[in-house]
């Protein structure tokens, strides 16, 4: 029978076990299920396959996808083609980690607990904050949770959000806020960055938080200094969404008075995986520790005084607070957080800086090459590892055409903004080379219609 490979009990075992329960047959175990809702026939699914056949099916399906393994990937916008070193996969594929449950029983979960504590420590250091949780689903739900937390802290109902925040994250935030009476006001995105003056003018007594992302969706670094100053003059909390790979060279959000820092950690040692699992993170100040959603690990001692770790502040969590909870998160992205912890240990202090400089340099090279051929950046401002360029032709069509050259050319901005249908967001990880960039530039020059060519 199919599936028997995972089922250790023989027919003889089953009979013996059933007999021990006092049941005459299996159906005796179903007496509490009304006859009318017991299935009469079998599920209409295809018959079970052997492991080889199932693997072949999945290999065939995997082969239909345009993976960054076979294509040169310039796509970013929230998911990035960074290299994942072998040590990450090696550690994350240890069954001791991946077949364990949530570490509720600390005495036999120290491996998971300590690695979460180390994750929290590294996220706190990256963001410059004092406290981090054990992870959230992704950068979008982290942003939504950050906003809910800020509204809960301030007991206000208005959110001012930069129009330059990743639109997928904004979309999720709006969905999450649907259950309340929150008012969301978005700033303009016309210039590609958030105008501090506009933020300042929008804040009023009802404002619970201001949300900014830097680098933002267009790749541009925001003037967090000026925005932070405007927010700090009010009672609103400052929520900042960051790309962690930028934080080797860019100042942490704490430097600008951020109260809550959230972000997408996929770039830290996690594959793109068609968008999931990703890794949401959240960090804040000690003052708001008791308002943080999700799990937190703390250091303590055992009965012999030996240092060890356990889940702490569980009274914040949904399973205790139940209907009084402000977040419902339970299962999160622990294994992805482990990958990030191993990756950040691998990268280290110098590696993070070098990674940042490398991405910055590759992006700057591409921008220079494009500009010299008449394809200047769509927006003014300093960018980190991605930027938007106007092609003069439909960017979605261009991306399709580039597939013939085995290039994933970028994210067409028309997917999100109808007025930017000719704009393409191009991203650069350390994997990209000059030759690959030259090929993309040449393709843009050949097929694009912008700049001097037009």
């Amino acid at each position, binding site marked *: 029978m199919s599936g028997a490979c995972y089922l250790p009990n023989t027919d003889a075992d089953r009979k013996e076990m059933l007999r021990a329960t006092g*049941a005459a047959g299996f159906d005796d175990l179903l007496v509490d299920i009304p006859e009318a809702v017991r299935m009469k026939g079998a599920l209409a699914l295809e018959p079970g396959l052997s492991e080889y056949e199932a693997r072949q099916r999945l290999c065939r399906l995997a082969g239909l996808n345009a993976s960054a393994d076979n294509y040169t990937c310039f796509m970013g916008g929230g998911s990035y083609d960074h290299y994942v070193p072998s040590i990450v996969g090696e550690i994350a594929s240890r069954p001791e980690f991946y077949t364990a449950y949530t570490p509720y029983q600390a005495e036999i979960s120290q491996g998971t607990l300590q690695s979460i504590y180390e994750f929290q420590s590294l996220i706190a250091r990256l963001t410059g904050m004092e406290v*981090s949780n054990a992870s959230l689903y992704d950068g979008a739900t982290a942003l939504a949770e950050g906003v809910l937390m800020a509204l809960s802290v301030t007991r206000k109902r208005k959110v001012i959000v930069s129009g330059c925040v990743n639109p997928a994250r904004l979309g999720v935030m709006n969905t999450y806020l649907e259950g309340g009476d929150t008012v969301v006001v978005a700033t303009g995105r016309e210039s590609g960055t958030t105008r501090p003056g506009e933020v300042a003018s929008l804040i009023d007594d009802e404002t619970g938080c201001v949300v900014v992302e830097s680098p933002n969706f267009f790749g541009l670094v925001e003037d967090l200094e000026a925005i932070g100053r405007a927010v700090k003059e009010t009672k609103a909390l400052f929520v900042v969404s960051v790309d962690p790979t930028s934080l080797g060279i860019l100042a942490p959000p704490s430097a600008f008075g951020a109260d809550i820092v959230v972000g997408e950690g996929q770039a830290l040692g996690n594959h793109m995986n068609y968008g999931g699992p990703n890794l949401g993170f959240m960090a804040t100040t000690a003052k708001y520790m008791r308002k943080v959603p999700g799990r937190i690990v703390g250091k303590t001692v055992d009965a012999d005084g030996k240092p060890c770790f356990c889940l702490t502040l569980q009274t914040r969590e949904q*399973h205790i607070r139940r209907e009084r909870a402000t977040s419902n998160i339970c*299962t999160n992205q622990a294994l992805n957080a482990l990958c990030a912890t191993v990756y950040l240990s691998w990268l280290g202090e110098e590696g993070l800086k070098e990674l940042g400089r490398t991405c910055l340099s590759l992006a700057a090279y591409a921008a220079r090459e494009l500009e010299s051929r008449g394809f200047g950046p769509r927006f003014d401002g300093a960018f980190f590892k991605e930027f938007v360029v106007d092609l003069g032709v439909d960017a979605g069509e261009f991306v399709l055409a580039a597939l013939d050259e085995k290039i994933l050319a970028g994210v067409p901005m028309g997917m999100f903004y109808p007025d930017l249908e000719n704009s393409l967001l191009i991203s650069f990880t350390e994997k990209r080379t000059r030759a690959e960039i030259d090929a993309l530039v040449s393709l843009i020059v050949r097929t694009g219609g912008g700049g001097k060519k037009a």
Partner: protein
Amino acid sequence: MIPGTTMLDKSKPGKRAYTLPTPDVEMVDPAAVFPPGLLREGPVGLPEVSEPEIARHFVNLSVLNHHVDKDFYPLGSCTMKYNPKVGNDTSGLPGFTGLHPMVPDRMAQGALAVMYELGRELCEITGMDDITMAPAAGAHGELTGMLMVRAYHAAQGKQRKKVLIPDSAHGTNPASVAVAGYESVEVPSGPDGRIDPEVIKPFLDDDVAAIMITNPNTLGLFETHICEVTRLVHEVGGLVYMDGANMNALLGISRPGDFGVDIVHLNLHKTFSTPHGGGGPGSGPVAVKEHLMPFLPVPYISKEGGAYRLSWDRERSIGRIHTFYGNFAVTVRAYCYVLMMGPDGLRRVAEDALIGANYLMAKLGGRFDIPYGGVCKHEFVASGKKFAGKGVRTNDIAKRLMDYGFHPPTVYFPLIVEEALMIEPTETESKHALDSFAEALIMISEEIESDPEKVRGAPYNTPVRRVDEAGAARSLDVAQ
């Protein structure tokens, strides 16, 4: 390894594990690009270590964990079953791992096929009409479902206020209801541990948006009156949401869609054998009946003329609930599992899960109180209350089980059983494993009689002794 020593403790300037390609373009100085105020001053404070030290550090940490590949893990409502290894290999195929989420649909046909086809299979398994694969975990599915309930009632022209939740519910249920903006109203279980239609009736009015039911419930009991309950809720215009965390008990046996459920979430990291990862990533697809299809989150995955596509233009959708499409790599594992199990295999999974749970309950019945007896489904709840006289609590029994090499059951849940031990063996445990576990519990019950102090002091043979959780909360150290 010295206990509690971190990578940061092992850091020494000048050590490095990383290698990065040297870019063949001019290196740019960040100071030439960004204003000085936006540049980082001083170090981040990341560890500086070599790769061998990383390997040793995390391998040493890993062996401190209990895990399914090591031994029995009978956490109730968590369905800690074996995770097939082929799932790792297939989800690790470069065609999946290296796939960017915004490639044109035509370049992601394999990935879309996995999500769509698994979705159709899950609809068949649950008896529902359509599904979203986007929720990243069970609680995320609950929130998605509750937001759909909201959208449904808004479309009916009148928003409602309350969601009924039995007192045996998972803690996430009331929390999800609260986040969705509803008031949760606790409904007591009947004397047999099940929902009693007569008890529900007084709670029903046109302000009830939905009832949220776990079936089988957290006592491991099938809600025998489910058809009557769903009929009553529908009569007042409410919807029926089922928490499908315990669906392992029902595979090929009974389908939520057939007993009147409107929305059900599944936990792929429970029922469909994907690993729990030490606390995630999971996946919590939400299946719905036809009248709720317009409200499913975007993007919506469809199949037209043999091609799969994502569509965004869905006016009545609740919107996005994940940056992209959920935990895709988890769905690859679940798809592989369903492909291999087939209809007979899945039915056998449920049968063996039920046989295992009832067998273990029978073996322990003489020594432990089972407050809600009879037949159970995939799990049952014992009580450690009778050992109170010896000064031993359920938590002590849990800790003592570790000395015998087992992970304890879920403890102190559900809340309606005092000193609860919630035991879910799953179908991937042999009779031998169940016998050994029962023997250990019986030995512990004897130790409680002869040497209660020993049980209260447990564990002794674990990587660390009993952990001071109160101390952790008192002197908070949550980051180094």
